[in-house]
């Protein structure tokens, strides 16, 4: 009797196939138990509930009332929604490239065998840890207030002004964009890690071929860094669409002045938890998902044209 036959016998009739199709699920169920409960009760359930709620009027007190597409129709003619979309797009379009550009420049500056890289890296990284805290938002309110640090600095170089950068509807968003750019440290660290992956041989070869620093940057560094840029870009876009705390604190929760800092999430919060229009807030949440999803999809589509993958 051959070994193959023996083993077939040992596995029993129809054994092997049944075994393969039905792996032992019990240990997985134990290890995944908490996650499974969370996924069902805190993710899938709420996602479905949010979808259902978006077709209702619900204020927590009275039972939800089905209203069909009313919430979505209302969106079309909601001036504050339009304003919040404008504000958020402007914010994303300026702060994301600004932040990534700063991150990239500093990463390149820090990469070339500099002494004390770790100290610089730490110093530049600190703001991105603090940037989302209420404390920094409080600080920002003061710095860009009428009698704030920024105006005091301007005064020192001879520009005397009493503008409240936070209080002026044409500059308030700018201060928030600046705050976002200020947190360039985390993409910078990712860029630095990416730069280190570029093999030294490429630069050696480029130098032998007579390429100068700029040509090396253009033909070696940039192409090999594009996957990292893309990764950072996707992350930054998703994160900046979800920005909330800074606009909330700086504007006192209102989106003031004149709704110029009314981030989408802030508007969603006001509708859901300020006015308790849970149905409309859910519809707004879904619009956000669609917008972020579309933005990400567009980014992925464009990546074909500029992201360089080695193979």
């Amino acid at each position, binding site marked *: 009797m051959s070994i193959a036959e023996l083993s077939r016998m040992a596995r029993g009739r129809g054994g092997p196939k049944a075994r393969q199709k039905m792996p032992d699920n019990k240990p997985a169920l134990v290890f995944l138990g*908490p996650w499974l409960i969370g996924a069902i009760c*805190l*993710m899938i359930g709420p996602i479905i509930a*949010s979808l259902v709620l978006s077709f209702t009027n619900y204020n927590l007190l009275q039972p939800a009332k089905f209203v069909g597409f009313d919430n979505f129709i209302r969106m079309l003619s909601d001036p504050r929604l339009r304003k919040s979309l404008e504000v958020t797009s402007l914010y994303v379009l300026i702060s994301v490239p600004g932040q990534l550009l700063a991150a990239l420049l500093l990463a390149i500056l820090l990469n070339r065998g500099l002494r004390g890289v770790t100290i610089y890296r730490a110093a530049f990284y600190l703001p991105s840890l603090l940037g989302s805290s209420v404390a920094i938002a*409080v600080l920002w309110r003061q710095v860009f207030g009428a009698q704030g640090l920024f105006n*005091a600095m301007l005064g020192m170089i001879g520009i005397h002004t009493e503008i409240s950068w936070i209080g002026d509807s044409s500059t308030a968003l700018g201060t928030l964009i600046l705050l976002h750019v*200020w947190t360039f440290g985390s993409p910078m660290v990712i860029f630095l890690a990416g730069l280190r992956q570029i093999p030294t041989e490429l*630069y050696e070869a480029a130098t032998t071929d007579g390429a100068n620093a700029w040509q090396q940057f253009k033909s070696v560094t940039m192409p090999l860094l594009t996957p990292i840029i893309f990764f950072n870009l996707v992350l930054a876009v998703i994160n900046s669409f979800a920005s909330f705390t800074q606009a909330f*604190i700086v504007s006192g929760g209102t989106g003031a002045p004149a709704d110029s800092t009314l981030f989408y999430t802030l508007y969603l919060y006001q509708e859901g938890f300020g006015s308790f229009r849970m149905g409309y807030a859910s519809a707004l949440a879904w619009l956000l*998902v669609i917008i972020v999803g579309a933005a990400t999809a567009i980014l992925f589509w464009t990546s074909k044209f500029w992201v360089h993958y080695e193979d």
Partner: protein
Amino acid sequence: MKTDSTTLQAPPRAKTARLRFPPRRPDPVAITPAPTPAAKSGRRGQTRRRVLAVVKHVCLILLVVVALYPVIWMLVSSLRPDGQIFSNPSIIPTTLHWENYTYGWTALTKPFSTYLVNSLLVVVAAIAGNLITCSMAAYAFARLKFRFQKPAFAFMLVTIMIPIHVVIVPQYILWSQLGLVNTFWPLIIPKFCATDAFFTFLMVQFIRGLPKSLDEAARIDGAGHGQIFFRILLPLMTPALATTTIFTFIWTWNDFFAQMIYLTDPKLYTVSIALRAYIDAQTSSSYGAMFAMSMVSIIPVVLIFIFGQKYLVQGIATTGLK
């Protein structure tokens, strides 16, 4: 020159890129002397490089000062009497006005220690939850075979991308139906359900990097999944666990949105919510106290940053966490 740039992307070079030696810094300009041109102008090139390095350091130090100026200024201003804060943009300490701290500590209905304790409670629970449940889930995804493994893993990844705002309304309704609004539970229970999928993913990646022969050897010795997980893998996962701890600490400590929604009772306020209450309660004349408490609120983050830097950088570099 043009031909150079095209040959740079030629396939043979691309192949060398895949030969990955232990990480090293590409450093051709600063250290490796360029063969022909630099050899001729040896010493002059060296001094030039040295001057360049000095210029670079000066620029970088200036940038560091600019980047950290607001925070340092806040620290210095928190030790100035209110009257001086507005007029003084410098970061040279002039006074040690500790009264801001003592006044700020008690300016709200509860002493600031209450809020610190509340924040710490939520943070510690969140860390425990993430460490336990994310590592368990990661073990299952990385080492076990089970039905619907692929869709489950895909769903886990998708939840990383889903903004909290989509689920916050139904979640709020759920917690309010359960009567748990104005308790810490809505902030803690989700962490014990591995909802921070970032960390699960981080740990899955980490476990995948550990040799499977370890598990198999243990299994031959008669170890079950529990033993393999606790005795073999968990001790090896320390770096991933450290990264998770640090990021959970910082994110939860800084969190504002969820804490504001669920905690409206002043005695349950966390540091974030308390600071916001300062803005509402105080007029602009008490910036000193507000800065003082802002400083108190960021000190834990700065400490964690100083002591956990290694794991922070590792975590960001491998997964792109913020």
